[in-house]
């Protein structure tokens, strides 16, 4: 008996908490209001779905369907011209080929190239850090410097890569200067493995350093001037302040740039492809491998190559989410 009464009471006290009661307090007629709010909610459901419907349709047709197909494609001999369902199933043949089989050397070499072309990332971070500190000062012309250093980053990758191709090619402008200075015939900047690694990274640093600089400049706003002032009074020199106060304040920015940069680097395609053309073993990235076997009409092998790459990207994403979550919990 007693417990029943308590239950009823709790129900009664709970009911005013519901949304309708809050919206219409103090004894106004509940029933018509409730149906009105239901009608409103139904209308809002309809409008909401109407507004997002193009995106939902787009994702279903142009992302979800290709996603399922690319998973299936890994197990078929698919040429990309005929329907996947008419193609011959081959089981794990493409997996075997990439992990130890016929295309293993080629795939992992292109994966290695991709990592070599990621050397630009730490370089961009270090150079960008010093540029940001230099440009974060209150002095004339700083805005112009920010624009100039960022300029190569917005320019068409094809246009700038073609400029670099002509500068660094065998017998190109750089080689001509090298010859005039009394060097040898050529530095082989686009025709040897080391030369390609150097040239592609240099191009990527030139294109990318403005972005990291701008991100660091934004991050520097979080450095407290009081802390620097206090350190100065304690007799710390500029270098100590830079390393002990400024740099730690930028750790979140560094982490963000490193993770997003690494994911971008792993999916590198444009610059090496435009500089060196299709299928160059020293310039082929992982995505270049995928594209190459698209051209060879072997979409099964290409899909396995793409998914192995995606696996590494997912791991990086998971690490990023884990660190972000820990950071939020710490705050």
């Amino acid at each position: 008996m007693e417990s029943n009464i308590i239950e009823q009471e709790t129900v009664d006290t709970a009911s005013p908490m519901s949304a309708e009661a809050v919206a219409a307090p103090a004894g106004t007629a509940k029933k018509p209001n409730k149906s009105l709010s239901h009608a409103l909610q139904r209308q809002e459901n309809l409008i909401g779905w109407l507004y997002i419907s193009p995106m939902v349709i787009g994702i279903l047709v142009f992302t979800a369907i290709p996603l399922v197909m690319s998973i299936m494609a890994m197990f078929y001999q698919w040429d990309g011209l005929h329907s996947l369902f008419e193609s011959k199933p081959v089981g794990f043949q493409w997996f075997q080929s990439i992990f130890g089989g016929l295309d293993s050397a080629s795939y992992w070499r292109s994966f290695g190239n991709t990592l070599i072309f990621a050397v630009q990332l730490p370089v961009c971070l270090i150079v960008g850090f010093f540029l940001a500190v230099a440009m974060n000062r209150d002095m004339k012309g700083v805005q112009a410097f920010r624009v100039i250093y960022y300029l190569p980053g917005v320019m068409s990758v094809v246009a700038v890569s073609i400029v670099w191709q002509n500068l660094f090619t065998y017998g190109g402008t750089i080689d001509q200067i090298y010859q005039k200075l009394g060097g040898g015939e050529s530095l082989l900047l686009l025709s040897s493995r080391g030369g390609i690694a150097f040239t592609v990274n240099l191009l990527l640093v030139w294109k990318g350093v403005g972005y990291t600089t701008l991100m660091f400049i934004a991050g520097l706003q979080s450095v407290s001037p009081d802390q620097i002032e206090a350190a100065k009074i304690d007799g710390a020199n500029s270098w100590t302040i830079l390393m002990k106060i400024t740099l730690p304040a930028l750790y979140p920015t560094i982490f963000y740039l490193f993770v997003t940069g690494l994911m971008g680097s792993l999916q590198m395609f444009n610059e090496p492809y435009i500089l060196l053309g299709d299928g160059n073993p020293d310039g082929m990235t992982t995505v270049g491998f995928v594209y190459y076997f698209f051209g060879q009409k072997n979409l099964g092998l290409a899909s396995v190559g793409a998914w192995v790459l995606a696996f590494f990207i997912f791991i990086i994403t998971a690490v990023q989410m884990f660190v972000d979550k820990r950071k939020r919990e710490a705050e």
Partner: protein
Amino acid sequence: MEDLENVNVLENAGQENQVPAQAEPARELSPKKPIPTKKIVDIVLIVVLSLGSVLMLLPFLWMVLATLKDHTEIYTTFFPHKWTLESYKAMWDGCNALMKGGIIRGFGNSILTTVPVVIVQIIVSAFAAYAFAKLRFFGKNIVFLLMLGTMMIPFSVIMLPQAWLYGEMNLTNGPLAVIIPKFFGSISTVFFLRQFFYGIPDSITEAARLDGAGYTRTFLSVLLPLVMPAIATQAILSFIGNWNDFLGPLLFIGDRNWLTLPLLVNRLSGSGGSTREIPRVLAASLISLVPIIIVFAAFQKKIIGSIVFSAVKG
């Protein structure tokens, strides 16, 4: 580096004052003399940054000069001995089968695959962003999470089935394969605009609703003007991204009459074996950069501001 400069600066400052007797105890009291130190560090930094700027701009300068050279001296001189506009003329007239109709054709293709995409994509994304930020509807959070999830899928995974799909839809014979799919909105734009809609207090939407405005009216006449700066930023970034896009058109445009400028320039540089073509290819590259240079010059504050925004958010 700065540390070393400061040491030099302090010594220089002492000499300039020409009162060494006084300078010595002054240094004891306050180890740094802020005003002259800052000035000289500024000058050193400006010199260093200027040298860096020259390195950043040198490839562009080489490019402009190379388009004005005769092909025989393309690699051997910096400034042309004989200035010529031959390569621009060749690009205007069209010098081979690939360039039939001249560069203007590629220019038109690039406009066609960029401007409608930017406009439709922004409108569709803005409606979705408004719905996700301000409306309460069934399944909203799940759909939004799924959409964010699709952002994690690398393009290289889905691009090959997409190429097949667009072929089946008969989109790859013209430019439509790089236009139609983008009409369905951009998830990153939705994500970006949603933040801005969140920033608008609900009281404003409710006031409009009480005045009898429907959802669409409220959105178009009350909320949209408030987020216009953000929409403009997204439109500019979308224009630059779509204009420069390479891998998408490379996979999805099969007909050589419909090549966009980046694709055309790439084919052109790959097709010719002789150095004769090089100034022409560079002229075409330069022409492909013109819209980007104009947009960047006009909106550099907005573009750079958007990076700062993403930095603060990230």
